[in-house]
């Protein structure tokens, strides 16, 4: 059995007719935590959206294989059901649909199995306590009236509940205070095991402090210009991205 979970080859992606990704290669194995760092506009969010095949981003070349299957042109919901999850920078608000009902429905779609509501709510509440979330929010409309921090924690909650094989966290730490970042980081630790993987997209170092990061990729102008280990994080923290720009 291959350990390979995600393999991106020579990925080229346009957003609004403009080329954003210019030939990305990225391989993620089970059990690994990867980090993509890069300045604003370098293509980090595009990479995340391209993996989930967001129709707003057009692939002009390359391929994405996930868990042995080509998902390059697959529908987003099918990719999600194969086990890819993305935590959004700006999670959408869904009025009239409670957190509990939404997650129960999503869990059912992702697993294809019926979800027992009482057991499920207990599980949900336990995760919420772990993430310092108010358990009464379980009955509130999804993300409606949530603070920035509550929305991000809710994304981590969804990750824990849906238990994907690959979790992509797109700037989950942005706009969060120190405590909230710690909570998110704790959520990632709870999630992580030898069979799954995490891809963290960030330009903030703090979220990475407590995590065992395996690979760091620096993305500049749609290309991965360097890949290395933890040392890159420290280096960028000290000197910024200027060294990597041409």
């Amino acid at each position, binding site marked *: 059995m291959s350990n390979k979970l995600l393999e991106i080859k020579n990925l080229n992606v346009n957003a609004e007719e403009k080329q954003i990704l210019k030939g990305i290669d990225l391989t993620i194995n089970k059990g690994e935590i990867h980090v993509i760092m890069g300045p604003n506009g370098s293509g980090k969010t595009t990479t995340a959206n391209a993996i*989930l095949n*967001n*129709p*707003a981003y057009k692939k002009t070349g390359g391929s994405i294989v996930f868990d042995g299957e080509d998902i390059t042109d697959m*529908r*987003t*919901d099918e990719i*999600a*059901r194969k086990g890819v*999850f*993305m935590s*959004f920078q700006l*999670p*959408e608000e*869904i*009025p*009239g*649909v409670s957190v509990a009902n*939404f997650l129960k*429905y*999503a869990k059912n*779609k*992702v697993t294809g199995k019926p979800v027992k509501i009482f057991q499920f709510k207990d599980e949900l509440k336990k995760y919420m306590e772990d993430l310092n979330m108010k358990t009464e929010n379980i009955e509130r*409309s999804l993300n409606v009236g949530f603070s920035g921090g509550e929305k991000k924690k809710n994304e981590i909650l*969804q990750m824990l509940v*849906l238990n994907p094989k690959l979790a992509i966290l797109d700037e989950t730490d942005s706009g969060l205070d120190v405590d909230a970042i710690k909570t998110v980081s704790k959520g990632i630790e709870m999630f992580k095991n030898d069979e799954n993987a995490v891809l963290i997209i960030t330009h903030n170092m703090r979220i990475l402090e407590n995590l065992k990061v395996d690979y760091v990729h620096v993305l500049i102008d749609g290309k991965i210009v360097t890949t290395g280990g933890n040392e890159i994080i420290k280096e960028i923290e000290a000197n910024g991205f200027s060294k990597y720009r041409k």
Partner: protein
Amino acid sequence: MAKTQLEELNRNIYDIKNKDDYDFKIQKGLTREIVEEISKRKNDPGWMKEIRLKALETYNKLELPTWGPDLSELNMDEIATYVRPKTKLNSSWDDVPDDIKNTFDKLGIPEAERTSLAGVGAQYDSEVVYHSMKEELLKQGVIYTDMETAVREYPEIVKEHFMKCVPINDHKFVALHAAVWSGGSFVYIPKGVKLEMPLQSYFRLNSPESGQFEHTLIIVEEGASLHFIEGCSAPKYNKVNLHAGCVELYVKKNAYLRYSTIENWSKNMMNLNTKKAIVEEGGQVDWVTGSFGSKISMLYPLSILNGKGAKTEYTGISFAGEGQNLDTGFKVIHNAPNTSSVVNAKSISKNGGKCTYRSLVRINENAQNSKSSVSCESLMLDDFSVSDTIPVNDIRTDEVEFSHEAKIGKISDKTIFYLMSRGLSEEDAKAMIVRGFAYPISKELPGEYAVEMNNLINLELEGAIG
């Protein structure tokens, strides 16, 4: 992603068509002879016959409305205004003929009657075929029966209230209704009697090229309380059917009435319905309405707040698909001090459907310290559906609190992507968003009707996305 396309929807249970097997169907059209014939066949007392004939004269004088949806497709020469089913009024479902009983069975009426209703009326074409109420209510003096029985057995009450809340010359289709009305329910709740469970009347129109003109008259006496539910549906035919019912509600001092409607007429139906309530001091009428069916609807329930501190709430949703023009809304007249009205109206349009919210809020000079708050929200599921809001606010005193809020929105691709990234198909994602949008309305309905409304939403969205 695939483009949106509409398949012919399977409306399953609503579309069950029984054979047009009537006992008597009057010739199409509207003449004095036809009205006289209906009156004779219904054994009207003289005073009722007079009302009918006077109403016909009024009908002939009045013009079609000059605003709203185009009604030119409606030709009264092609409509039979009276169709008597092959049965009498029954008080046991066992006595209702099989084909009719099966229809109501599939609509879940006898089942709901056993579990969650205090009484049920069921109308098939022009006549009520079943009416029954729990015995203990009878002992408390509650009257719940078909309108014909009420005319016969309670003529004084009927005379005092019939076409008094809604005057015959209100508009052309009210006059038409008064001329050819048949069926409907009469409810009388005596002083201080509070019903725990709702009463429900269901109206089913089976006969093609015909009309249904039921009359609902409800009197809730001082301090009494009632939840009344009406449901309506019809199978689809190629030619126009007409529904011009009339609902008159009298809510006395400190009384409470909730009037809930789940309307799912077939899409060849012209639904030109009229509903009004007069509310006395400290009384309250709440309207909860889900409108899904019909080709054209024009329906604007009116609450007249005549007594000090009277209240009304309107909670309504309409859902227009291909070829539907649903012109609905709410009217309120504040006619006494300290009255209040709250409106929460929503509409959904898709596949070229058109929803218009048309409203009137009038606060008279004598209605000091009154409050009115109106919120209407529309959701369009594509670029070629239409949504419009036409509010009229006529505020004649300064001592009021009034607010009006209107929002028109679309489902964004970002929201759909977000939900799809959680494993929902595009269709599931849209249905979830629409159900959530409708939730503030559906939560106002009793459990099984909330379920029915969600089913209707799913039915409307089914097959809509390729």
